[in-house]
């Protein structure tokens, strides 16, 4: 099937076939990243604007890098330097960017639904780089890409997502992708951060770390934000770590071949033991590298490229 989607807003709306196409395209691009000349002319002459209205380092740099590897011109803008601080609406900011001749816009925004809103306004492709607690589709794609590299098919695999699920767009995007890929997803953490309403998304909800981690093939940790503690979601980081932090003993409950993932930024010693983060089961830095290949694939496909023409794009 040819790629027809212009925007990437959610993984909820992607079909399994579309996820497979992105992963296949990313595989091809990843080969390029290993060469001495890491650049292809696929998007030469195109201009990509990264509109990051919420702070980000990793995602923004990865989108930057991905666009440059595809030979696109890139302009990155953050909230503090944009006119939004002067009261300009998102509609006006985005329409100005389109009028300046951008060919594609990547948006990170604290308000859920903003990328969908822009996709209805603009005539250029919109890529969601994280909207509030809603979705972070390229993260979900790179995470599942990384899992597939290590585990092959994800059908029937047990994937555990551990931590602050309520506020996590990474968790939501992973849940949608993993469900489509046939994995069994368990979300685990304190009951305030892992509400029972998540069951409706097709996952198992648990507050018992031992049974959740038992025989898991993947454990994905999420960053615990300090501000959740001040808003009364749990008593202290110390108590969180003692109940839900991943340490060596608890890692022993996993399937021996299990991988440990984290979208970053890591709080060493809080959600994960420092040693485990750097250990041989950790694939955290691979996730970062794969993030470039996956974002290259997304930028390429949403700009009108087709999966099978990647080779010729080289």
């Amino acid at each position, binding site marked *: 099937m040819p790629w027809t989607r212009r925007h990437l807003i959610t993984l909820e709306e992607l079909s399994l076939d579309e996820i497979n196409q992105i992963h296949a395209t990313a595989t091809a691009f990843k080969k390029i990243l290993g060469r001495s000349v890491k650049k292809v002319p696929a998007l030469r002459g195109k201009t990509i604007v990264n509109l990051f209205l919420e702070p980000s380092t990793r995602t923004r740099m990865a989108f930057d890098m991905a666009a440059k590897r595809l030979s696109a011109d890139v302009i990155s803008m953050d909230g503090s330097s944009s006119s939004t601080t002067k009261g300009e609406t998102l509609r006006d900011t985005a329409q100005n960017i389109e009028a300046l001749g951008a060919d594609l816009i990547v948006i990170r925004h604290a308000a*859920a639904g903003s990328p969908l809103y822009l996709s209805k306004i603009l005539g250029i492709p919109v890529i969601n780089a994280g909207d509030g607690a809603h979705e972070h589709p390229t993260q979900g794609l790179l995470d599942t890409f990384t899992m597939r590299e290590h585990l092959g098919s994800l059908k029937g695999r047990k994937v555990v997502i551990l931590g602050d699920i309520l506020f996590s767009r990474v968790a*939501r995007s992973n849940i949608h992708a993993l469900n489509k890929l046939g994995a069994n997803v368990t979300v685990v953490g304190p009951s305030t951060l892992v509400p029972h309403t998540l069951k409706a998304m097709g996952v198992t909800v648990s507050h018992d770390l031992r049974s959740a981690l038992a025989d898991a093939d993947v454990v994905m940790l999420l960053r615990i934000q300090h501000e959740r503690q001040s808003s009364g979601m749990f008593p202290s980081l110390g108590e969180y770590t003692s109940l839900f932090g991943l340490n060596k003993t608890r890692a022993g409950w996993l399937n021996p071949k299990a991988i440990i993932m984290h979208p970053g930024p890591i709080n060493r010693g809080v959600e994960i033991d420092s040693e485990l983060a750097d250990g041989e089961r950790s694939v955290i830095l691979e996730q970062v590298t794969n993030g470039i290949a996956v974002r290259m694939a997304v930028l390429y496909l949403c700009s009108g490229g087709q999966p099978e023409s990647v080779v010729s794009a080289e």
Partner: protein
Amino acid sequence: MPSLWISNARVIDPAAKRDSVGDLFIKDGKFVASLSAAELKKAKKIDAKGLVACPGLVDIHVHFREPGQMHKETIETGSRAAAAGGFTSVVCMPNTAPVADTAGTIQQIKDSIARTACIKVYPTGCITVGMKGQALAPIGSLKRAGVIAITDDGDCVQSNELMRRACEYAKMFDLPLMDHCQDHSMTVGAVMNEGVVSTRLGLKGWPNAAEDIIVARNVVLATYTGAHIHMQHISSKNSVEILRRAKARGVPVSAEATPHHIALTDEALGTYDTHFKMNPPLRTEEDRVAIIEGLRDGTLDILATDHAPHTDYEKDKEFDYAPNGILGLETALPISLEILVRKNKFKLPYVIDLLTRKPANLLKLEAGTLAVGAPADVCLFDPDEKWLYDAKAGFSKSSNSPWHGQTLQGRVKTTIVDGKVVFNHGKIS
């Protein structure tokens, strides 16, 4: 003013338990039993064959944004929207700019009503100074200036002590308190119902419990003080149950439901459309059904629209940042007919009662009846006509309606206030 002869209507007057085809006669702004042969000859005759004639509709919950937010709505445009929706009496909320917490502001509102309103518009005043929930507003002065109830609508009074004193004090003037039931500590940053849908959409939810707690608080305070507390726009199943038990004990509480809470659920928010964002939020199917049942057994006394205009550019924002509220006046009747009469088999006279006599009685308004001698306020509507609702072509200054572009069934044809035709076949006269 010519006398009016409305002929061959299905006349529904819940106060008189009347539901029969017949005529209505109006002379000098009042209903009369009949007109003389000479008067009939001179009277303006309205052939109402196939139409329902009922008391002019009464809405005790509207926002006309005057003074201070007249880019959204004015008393003039709001009253026209009301007339187009069949309403002849409405009650304005005091969350204007400045808020209506002084006799001077009430007088300013009343002056504008006298100058510009085409229907009867009644002001309310604030419970607390500045609607800040910290000190009692000059409730006695507000009463003398002409408010018919007090409310901090939109900003529920959080202090139980202050609410208790407001109840005691307002009771001295026989003024009802109307409360928007929301515990603020549980709804910080919340933009929709808390539940499965908010979890999926990643939006901050406001739980039913935040409403239920204040409804229960108000039941306790109404019991303790004997003051009449009216609970605005009930949205939660548990709140209906709390009110049901309170009413069985004879506690002086009343409650309203909105057309949108009986018609829609939070499932409508899937595309982050801000035309479905209001406060209290759309809730679940379970809540929606409970509210309909609350209306059926009288736990919820009345329908009220919470007509809340906002401009296109204010609503055209990220969901988190868009203001709460939707229009209601021009769609209330067709939506109520659709949900209550056609889908839930309520009797038409009962639904009309929810929109006329009952709300009028709650606030002691001289309205809601076709009785001889009463002010001749009439709504004539075709219960079956299907029509395309274009919010942009409506009479409100704003167009923020979730029903924009939809075909609705049931259409107001003529609205009469004090014997004067103010709206007729799509036009304000």
